[in-house]
């Protein structure tokens, strides 16, 4: 564990009194390795370590000794600060409030859409699930089946095969039926697919969603920065949802996504069932990343 490794680093230099910058460097190197092993992006780690060094060296000149635990505390606090000090909820302030879910193939958008509907229903609202994925085999059936579990009807696109027009029509449908929240499930796509990214831009400009949430797999590695920055540049996302956190991935993607977009991680998926959605807790994520 990181605390174990830091203990042995500091044990070596204990009894030398005041720590030198080079001593902190060795400890900080261990922190860097831990973050890389946790899938935090290489460049994000670089910037983060610089911030930690500044803090650590500052502290040591005050006190003369900086034990491993204290360094971990600095790192932990710095991680929490970076990832957003407290959990932020969804902005559901228009009527109907439109939530758009976007992300790579298989990240968990369709399942998360249903989970969001459940969460929103619990708050006394009336959600409409909208299947904007006209490409994937049985995508509509998947959302309909999840809707049935929820006891919620899913918007029927009819013969419409255009994602943007389905979305637009669903909002009119919601207004006509006094449904106050529209959840748009979109097809998975690569951030480097120009045409499909343009489709999302068109959807955004047509509907002005209150929330554009990047649904990202918690086990994503170094590529998380490329994915997040592309979706953010194209859409100015309002936040992210990290899925599959019920596994044993350290989840460094959480830090990468926040660092590169500046947008908060709002919710996390912690299982395959419709209730398996929670608020994002930066302090828990920080501990998890540090291992």
């Amino acid at each position, binding site marked *: 564990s990181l605390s174990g490794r830091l203990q042995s680093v500091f044990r070596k230099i204990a009894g030398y009194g005041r720590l030198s910058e080079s001593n902190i460097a060795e400890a900080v190197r261990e922190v860097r390795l831990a973050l890389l092993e946790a899938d935090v992006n290489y460049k994000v780690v670089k910037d983060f370590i610089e911030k930690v060094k500044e803090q650590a060296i500052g502290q040591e000149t005050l006190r003369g000794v900086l034990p491993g635990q204290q360094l971990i505390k600095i790192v932990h606090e710095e991680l929490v600060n970076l990832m957003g000090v407290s959990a932020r909820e969804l902005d559901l302030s228009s009527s109907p409030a439109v939530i758009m879910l976007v992300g790579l*193939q298989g990240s968990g958008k369709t399942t998360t859409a249903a989970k969001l509907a459940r969460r929103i229903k619990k708050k006394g609202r009336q959600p409409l699930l909208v299947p904007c994925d006209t490409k994937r085999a049985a995508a509509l059936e998947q959302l309909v089946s999840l809707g049935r*579990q929820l006891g919620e009807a899913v918007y029927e696109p009819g013969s419409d095969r255009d994602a943007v027009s389905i979305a637009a029509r669903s909002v009119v449908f919601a207004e006509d039926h006094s449904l106050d929240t529209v959840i748009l499930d979109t097809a998975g796509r*690569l951030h480097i697919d120009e045409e499909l990214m343009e489709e999302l831009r068109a959807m955004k400009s047509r509907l002005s969603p209150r929330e554009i949430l990047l649904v990202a797999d918690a*086990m*994503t590695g170094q590529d*998380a920065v490329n994915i997040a920055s592309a979706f953010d540049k194209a859409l100015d996302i309002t936040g992210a949802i990290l899925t599959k956190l019920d596994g*044993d*991935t350290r989840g*460094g993607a959480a830090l990468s996504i926040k660092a590169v977009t500046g947008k908060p991680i709002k919710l996390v998926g912690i299982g*395959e069932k419709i209730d398996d959605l929670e608020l994002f807790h930066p302090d828990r994520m920080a501990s998890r990343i540090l291992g």
Partner: protein
Amino acid sequence: FTGRGRIDEEMLEELEATFLQADMGVKVTARLIDCVREFHKSEKGLGREGLIERLEGEVASVLGSNSASLNVSCSPPTVILVVGVNGTGKTTTIAKLAKMLQDEGKKVLLAACDTFRAAAIDQLSILAEQAGVSIVRHKHGADAAAVAYDAVEAALARGMDYLIVDTAGRLHTKVNLMEEVKKVQRVIAKKIPGAPHEVLLVLDATTGQNALQQAKMFHEALGLTGIVMAKLDGTAKGGILLAIKQELDIPIKFVGVGEGLDDLEPFVPSDFAGALFE
């Protein structure tokens, strides 16, 4: 690398960044950096181009010197069990494999053993139709092992060359789900000794270090015979394959490079190594 005897530290840092950002991980990166130092020692005039060439060769040799092919049973059907965590691309990969084998004139049958996820059976049924192959399916919620049993019976009765079994995505940390897939494997083995002849783990190219843990746990549970890395058409490099190959020595057989039924290619180590350095 100006031939002045000392290694260019800036180039080392640049290479280290390349390796780490390719998801190779800390250990493999350190090992490759050691290789770089070795190459520099043994070949004093080695420029940047020559170095990259050596490294590509090193990576390719770690990944397996030749493209690994599907195991084939000496008496049909060859049974292929496909497993992996949620959303990696198993169902799509199965459809691609089915189309590939079908195009080779083989008789292919699919088994819809993901009886859990919403519309999983519908999804595979549609893909089976697109690939022009038949499928054995029960109702949603049926016992996965029971479906597998029926599928093996059908494959034998109908003289199929291949039976490809789709399973539900499952996190390797969920003991009961790992037990379930072991049961599916046992049921297949009971019906056809030696089957499944191929147990393929499908990994998502965007997954980081956790892919190694996934491979370890699925290997421990089932004994993997091959790996497919899907979604290599994105920007992720899939460098974790080096650690997996080094630690577990499981052959990497195919790569998925798109969502279409033709988007499956045999894994070619030298191509993969070349792409890492682009």
